[in-house]
């Protein structure tokens, strides 16, 4: 590191210019940075379940559904029906929409009063019902049919859906905007809700942009304030701010150059970098303020200061990178992997900038001459506080350890209470349009989370159709599964109007006859493939409660496994099973990432201390931190979701920095003074102070996420903030207490210390009194 330090100081001008040029370059490439709020697009494509889900989406238009719900006192009114008809036919003309279904164009199969059959539209678009009698008649008919009630029209006849299937190649967000535009132009008296993924994506991308635009300024101001009150100097504010700004620009620039869009998770990379990355330059500035005291010989002093500080800063950044990198391996969602990767890269950039650009500037601008007045001021402030902590630790080490253990145990007891949440709707605040729409959909139409079964075999075989129907009955019997639908229902309906009853016909000939009349209808391409070897059964489920979903997935699996025929196969897919996998993966990835992070960090600590026990001891604040995360999650009902699952290893990565800095300094002071008291108070005055400042800045930085509009990000912010306090307190109380009580050898030779710790406490008090 010494060599690096020398090189940095030697080429400082070049480094400053180079950093600025790089920043300009990456800043320019930011113009191509895109946002992809579509979580579905990050499902692992090689997972058979996802593969099947995407296959059904592509072949049967299953996954790209935009839903418009029209709500009025009564849907069957002349103007409302007219509006629905107009909207339906306008949307049908959009390029991105392959099919639209509403009560004004849905396929209708019925027998008329003359014994004839009618295969046509529910409502004749050229003769919309106008008179009250006509409207009443069509209302009664529509509500009497299972095909429409609870699917296109609510039972209370107050809400009606217009269901749009988007083309596979369509730009979902663009098409959703076009649909909204059509409706906005209509000047409707009815209330309109927008549901389904395409509309959710519009809201999500707005929310993401809004979050970036709101959060970054807030966090910048907070960090400026925190830095100002800590350093009370211009450089102390501007340098850390520049270094995080640069590293953020570099990271996003690289993402943009690699064509990797921002996601709902990586959206917070700027916030993370600002909160975490500022620490590195703070440490460097702190060291320079302390060690580079005169303008004479400042180059040599700078080299020495940088050489000394760069090792702990390097370790701190490596551990943080490890914390993020723990997600790169085995993450179920690609977007989590990308998040880990680019956050880690950003941290690395922040590190590089803080040991190159920052010291280069520091070695050029004049040295701050700290006046004695300032020092006494400081003494009264944070240093005095740190001294008090030192005394407290020395006096109460046993109590601290006992409290620590107690706290740990209480937190561990909270772990079984932790809930999990994978529901995408859970991301949005209550009261948002998306949540309202979903609640209305759940209430009136049985939810919108698709369950899909792909049937392979001879679909025109009465046996296969009967099995499909039986399976639908099974789904219906589940209670929370609604609206099972397949070609079998249409065939039954047709058979009924032919006068043979509402059953699957017993002969293949009858089926093919009925089929002939359905062929070419829009709805067919959503139910069967063109050579009738595949069909889809679609249904929806209301809740995505983890336990319920797991049970349902298993119940369906048991049912399907029980079907014994080699002539046809039924395979289950749908969002419910993807949620189930996501849930499972969140658990796995939680455990896995924690283990990876703990092992790597243990190795790093061990390497730093040249001692196994030292490595283990450094992990103490980490266990304390982890316990506090899971305790808080358990007791305060913060569920494990795609964002909070990240907190564990990120906190390890950030929190371990405090231990590293603390042990590093304590070891040095102890070896110099051979006095644990001096060492402790000196460490607390310097490094301890930096830790407290850092805890406050990082905590404030993450607390900013409370203002985020996505719930998981809010939870993430609160949790990280809490854990920062946990690992900070752990590092300046629990860690020294353990070191003192175990007389850990890795900090130095304890044999020269004559008196026991308890005797020494008196002398500390004396000493501090003497100092005053």
């Amino acid at each position: 590191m010494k060599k690096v330090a020398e090189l940095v100081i030697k080429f400082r001008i070049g480094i400053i210019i180079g950093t600025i040029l790089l920043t300009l370059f990456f800043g320019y490439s930011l113009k191509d940075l895109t946002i992809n709020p579509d979580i579905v697009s990050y499902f692992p494509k090689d997972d058979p379940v996802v593969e099947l889900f995407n296959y059904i989406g592509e072949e049967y238009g299953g996954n790209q559904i935009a839903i418009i719900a029209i709500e009025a006192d009564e849907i069957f009114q002349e103007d409302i029906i007219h509006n629905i008809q107009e909207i339906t036919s306008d949307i049908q003309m959009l390029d991105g929409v392959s099919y639209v279904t509403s009560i004004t164009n849905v396929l209708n199969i019925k027998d008329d009063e003359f014994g004839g059959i009618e295969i046509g539209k529910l409502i004749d678009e050229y003769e919309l019902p106008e008179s009250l009698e006509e409207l009443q008649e069509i209302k009664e008919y529509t509500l009497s049919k299972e095909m429409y009630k609870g699917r296109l029209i609510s039972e209370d006849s107050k809400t009606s859906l217009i269901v749009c299937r988007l083309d596979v190649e369509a730009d979902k967000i663009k098409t959703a905007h076009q649909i909204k535009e059509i409706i906005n132009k209509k000047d409707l008296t009815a209330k309109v809700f927008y549901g389904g993924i395409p509309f959710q994506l519009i809201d999500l991308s707005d929310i993401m942009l809004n979050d970036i635009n709101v959060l970054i300024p807030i966090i910048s101001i907070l960090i400026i304030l925190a830095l100002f009150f800590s350093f009370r100097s211009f450089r102390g504010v501007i340098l850390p701010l520049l270094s995080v700004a640069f590293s953020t620009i570099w990271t996003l620039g690289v993402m943009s150059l690699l064509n990797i869009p921002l996601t709902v998770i990586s959206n917070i990379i700027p916030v993370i970098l600002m909160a975490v990355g500022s620490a590195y330059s703070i440490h460097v500035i702190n060291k320079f303020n302390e060690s580079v005291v005169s303008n004479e010989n400042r180059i040599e002093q700078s080299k020495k200061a940088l050489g000394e500080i760069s090792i702990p800063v390097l370790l701190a950044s490596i551990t943080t990178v490890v914390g993020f990198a723990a997600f790169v391996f085995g993450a179920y969602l690609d977007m989590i992997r990308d998040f880990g990767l680019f956050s880690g890269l950003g941290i690395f950039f922040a590190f590089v900038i803080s040991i190159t650009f920052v010291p280069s500037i520091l070695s050029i601008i004049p040295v701050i001459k700290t006046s004695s007045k300032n020092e006494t001021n400081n003494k009264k402030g944070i240093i005095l506080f740190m001294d008090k902590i030192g005394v407290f630790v020395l006096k109460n080490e046993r109590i601290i350890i006992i409290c620590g253990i107690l706290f740990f145990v209480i937190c561990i007891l909270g772990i079984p209470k932790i809930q999990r949440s994978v529901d995408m709707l859970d991301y949005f605040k209550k009261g948002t349009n998306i949540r309202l729409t979903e609640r209305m959909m759940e209430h009136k139409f049985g939810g919108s989370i698709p369950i899909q079964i792909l049937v392979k075999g001879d679909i025109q075989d009465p046996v296969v159709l009967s099995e499909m129907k039986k399976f639908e009955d099974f789904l219906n019997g589940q209670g929370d599964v609604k609206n099972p639908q397949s070609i079998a229902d249409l065939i039954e309906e047709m058979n009924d109007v032919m006068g043979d009853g509402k059953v699957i016909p017993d002969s293949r000939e009858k089926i093919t006859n009925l089929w002939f009349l359905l062929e070419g209808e829009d709805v067919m391409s959503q139910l069967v493939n063109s050579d009738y070897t595949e069909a889809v059964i679609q249904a929806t489920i209301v809740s995505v409660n983890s336990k319920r979903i797991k049970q349902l997935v298993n119940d369906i699996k048991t049912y399907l496994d029980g079907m014994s025929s080699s002539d046809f196969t039924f395979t289950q897919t749908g969002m419910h099973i993807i949620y189930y996998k996501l849930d499972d993966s969140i658990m796995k990835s939680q455990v896995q990432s924690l283990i990876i992070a703990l092992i790597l960090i243990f190795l790093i600590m061990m390497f730093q201390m040249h001692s196994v026990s030292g490595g283990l001891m450094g992990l103490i604040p980490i266990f304390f931190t982890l316990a506090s995360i899971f305790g808080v999650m358990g007791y305060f009902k913060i569920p494990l979701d795609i964002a909070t699952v990240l907190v564990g290893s990120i906190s390890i990565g950030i929190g371990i920095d405090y231990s590293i800095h603390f042990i590093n300094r304590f070891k040095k002071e102890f070896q110099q003074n051979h006095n644990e008291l001096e060492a402790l108070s000196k460490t607390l005055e310097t490094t301890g102070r930096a830790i407290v400042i850092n805890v406050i800045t990082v905590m404030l930085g993450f607390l900013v996420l409370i203002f985020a509009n996505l719930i998981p990000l809010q939870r993430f912010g609160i949790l990280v903030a809490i854990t920062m306090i946990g690992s900070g307190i752990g590092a300046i109380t629990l860690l020294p207490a353990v070191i003192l009580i175990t007389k850990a050898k890795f900090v130095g030779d304890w044999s020269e210390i004559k008196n026991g710790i308890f005797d020494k406490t008196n002398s500390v008090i004396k000493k501090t009194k003497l100092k005053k």
Partner: protein
Amino acid sequence: MKKIIQRSLFLLLISLFFASLWAEEIQLTAVQILGKADDVINAPQDQDLKIKLILIDKKGKEKVREMSMLQKGSDKRLVKFLSPADQKGIAFLSLPDDVMYLYMPAFKKIRRIASHVKNTKFAGTDFTYEDMEAVRYSDKYIPEFIEKKDNHFLLQLTPKEGIKTDYAKLIMWVREDNFYITKIEHYNRGDKLFKIMIRDKIEKIGEYWLARESEMQDLKSKHTTKMIIEEVKLDSEVSDDKFTKRNLEK
């Protein structure tokens, strides 16, 4: 002076008169062209056809079926499917005043089919019942002359008031020499082209012109239907009692 004014007024009137005549002639021509085109298509008294239908989906997969079609005048028609085997015997009978019957051999039942569903597709093809109707375009549309191009008259047809149709506009290609319609572009109510019909292999059979092949492309679903006339008998004096319910079952 007075004379000059009178003379120029007279000239003006004359030229206005001829201008209006000339304009009217074009108007007349558009109507006439369409009238002639209607005459050419509906010329045979009756037609007895064997038709092969090829349905092509967007992936290029083809399905083939065959049907026989017996037509008399513009409002009597009997269609029977001959193949594939599982559709053999399915038959439609269209009679005047939008009366239509369907026969399903597997059920051995005749059912009347409601008539107001003209914009539904006929038997999985891209032709709707409306497209299959043997109605004179002149009865439903107002033609407007666009231009002459590649030996064709181009007409723009807009529906007459009160006509129920999916098409807001048709652009029609009519051959200059024999007034046979070779192509129709169908525009939806958003004024967007969404279906194209093309007639090909136009031959003279006896004294009548007939397209051996017609094709309908649905631009949105990217589905295409080809209709190929395999056998044709014209003016064979088909009797009216072919068009009965009893004959539907045979």
